[in-house]
């Protein structure tokens, strides 16, 4: 077994044990991180596999949150059975629409057009009454998962919510890992590296890229659904380009194109943010957490050009060099 896999498995077990501490603050913090990890992994399919750098990925995250909030009845809990598929369908439909338009461009133009679509949706929710304007919408009751009247999961309880998110994160990780290694993933990688050659081999780029865009948008929607569940609140900020940039930063921090890098990046980013913003540790400087955060990120990117996941690559190399005779 490869060393990297052992470390990842140990890491996953470590995360799974967090709720045993019983500290609600940490359970909720790690839940939030895992949701961001799902979000960052969905972006890795675009950036790492297909080479499409999007600055509008939060659009799918945000619209999914709003869709859940708008679908939920005001005075009772919504059903996960109904709302989750509806939100995923909505995200997929939105991604198909936006993808069809933006994938006609490439490179820096792609970045600008995704940014433009993201901002369009931001202002749609910010400036109209559709989703409560800049105040957003509250979700007073979290969705329920019921079978024949029996509650399977109570998302109000941090413990249940944690494992719900943990399971979904692992599911998304394995789904995307298969996707990266599938013929579809190889075709995307080929298009990233050398589109001209792929075309001359008979691959039309658009269907492949659109497939990736829709899958990535749908999974970002899944993360947005979970996030709206956790905070019981949506506002236009979750659609803004700042948020798209934040998730891109997590991905770069953790290392692009290796999936677990997205998870590492989400953990590193949020924990760093907590650290830099801790008044107990840093006193008044904590108010300016972004300054310290920026400096650390610049340092990491300078020292580890492949992100935190790059450390794992060197570990893997050490291991591979030994036993194979």
């Amino acid at each position, binding site marked *: 077994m490869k060393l990297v896999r052992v470390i990842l498995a140990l890491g996953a077990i470590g995360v799974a044990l967090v709720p045993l501490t019983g500290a609600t603050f940490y359970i909720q913090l790690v839940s939030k991180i895992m949701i961001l990890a799902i979000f960052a992994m969905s972006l890795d399919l675009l950036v790492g596999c297909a080479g499409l750098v999007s600055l509008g990925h939060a659009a799918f995250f945000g619209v999914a949150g709003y869709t859940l909030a708008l679908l939920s009845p005001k005075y009772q809990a919504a059903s996960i059975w109904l709302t989750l598929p509806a939100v995923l369908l909505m995200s997929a439909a939105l991604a198909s629409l936006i993808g069809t338009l933006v994938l006609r461009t490439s490179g820096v133009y792609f970045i600008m057009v995704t940014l433009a679509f993201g901002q369009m949706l931001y202002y749609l929710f910010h400036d109209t009454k559709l989703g409560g304007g800049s105040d957003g919408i509250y979700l007073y009751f979290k969705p329920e998962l019921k079978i024949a009247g029996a509650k399977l999961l109570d998302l109000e309880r941090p413990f249940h919510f944690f494992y719900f998110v943990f399971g979904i994160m692992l599911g998304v990780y394995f789904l995307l890992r298969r996707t990266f290694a599938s*013929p579809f993933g*190889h075709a995307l990688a080929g298009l990233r590296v050398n589109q001209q050659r792929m075309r*001359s081999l008979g691959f039309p780029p658009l269907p492949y890229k659109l497939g990736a865009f829709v899958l990535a948008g749908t999974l970002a929607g899944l993360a947005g659904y979970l996030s709206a569940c956790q905070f019981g609140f949506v506002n236009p900020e979750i659609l803004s380009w700042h948020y798209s940039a934040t998730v891109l930063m997590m991905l770069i921090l953790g290392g692009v194109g290796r999936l677990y890098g997205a998870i590492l990046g989400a953990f590193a980013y949020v924990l760093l943010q907590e650290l830099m913003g801790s008044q107990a540790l840093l006193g008044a400087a904590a108010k300016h957490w972004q300054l310290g955060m920026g400096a650390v990120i610049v340092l990491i990117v300078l020292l580890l050009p492949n992100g935190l996941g790059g450390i794992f690559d060197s570990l893997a190399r050490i291991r591979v060099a030994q036993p194979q005779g």
Partner: protein
Amino acid sequence: MSERGLRAVGLTKVFGGLTAVSDVSIELTRGVLHAVIGPNGAGKTTLINMLSGDLAPTSGIFHFNGRDIFGYSSDLRSQFGIGRTYQKINIFPSFTALENCRLAAQSREPHPLSLLRGTGAYPSLTREAERALAAVGLEQRAQAIAGTLSHGEQRQLDIAMSLATRPQVLLLDEPLSGMGAEESVKMVRLLRELAKAHAVLLVEHDMDAVFALAEVLTVMVDGCVLQSGTQEQIRASAEVQRAYLGSVEEHRG
């Protein structure tokens, strides 16, 4: 006139004020290796790019197996059976040789909902890839990472990738460039083999190889066809001697 193969008539490409290719006609049929020679800047690569669909011609006629394919993109032309290689080696260096060919074969057999299975889960793709590797003599190197292959092997792999798409026409842009003597001999043998079952267009500067292989030659100068004909006709042409081959002969002397 044969309806099989690729037939282009009156191809012209104008870049701004520069006419890169002017009124070139060419016909490629199965079993014939057609070489295009000419000095640098003669428009040979522009011609290949137009035939493969990488570049849209300003004007001209394209027929492939009797079908008008003018304006078809390179991915569609590849689907019809026009394969090519580039002057620069175009392989995916981080994949193994087999994966490179499997990727190519996959374009003929897309599995749209194949997200959940590994690339090895499709035996027909693997078989196709192995066949292509065997055709170029790389079967022993199937598991090697493409980027670690020698220059000559990478050229062979590049051709194998095209073969994995089962083309009828092969457009090869300087497959011998940068090769050592031994590698060249191997490649010439491979091209001769390929010419039996494909229509091959070869752009090449290595005149020994061209005259060893080509049945038909087209000599281009400044974007125009100077002369086109069988090898004997080209060799005998005083015009070609003056414009092009003469200088080569002098180098040899």
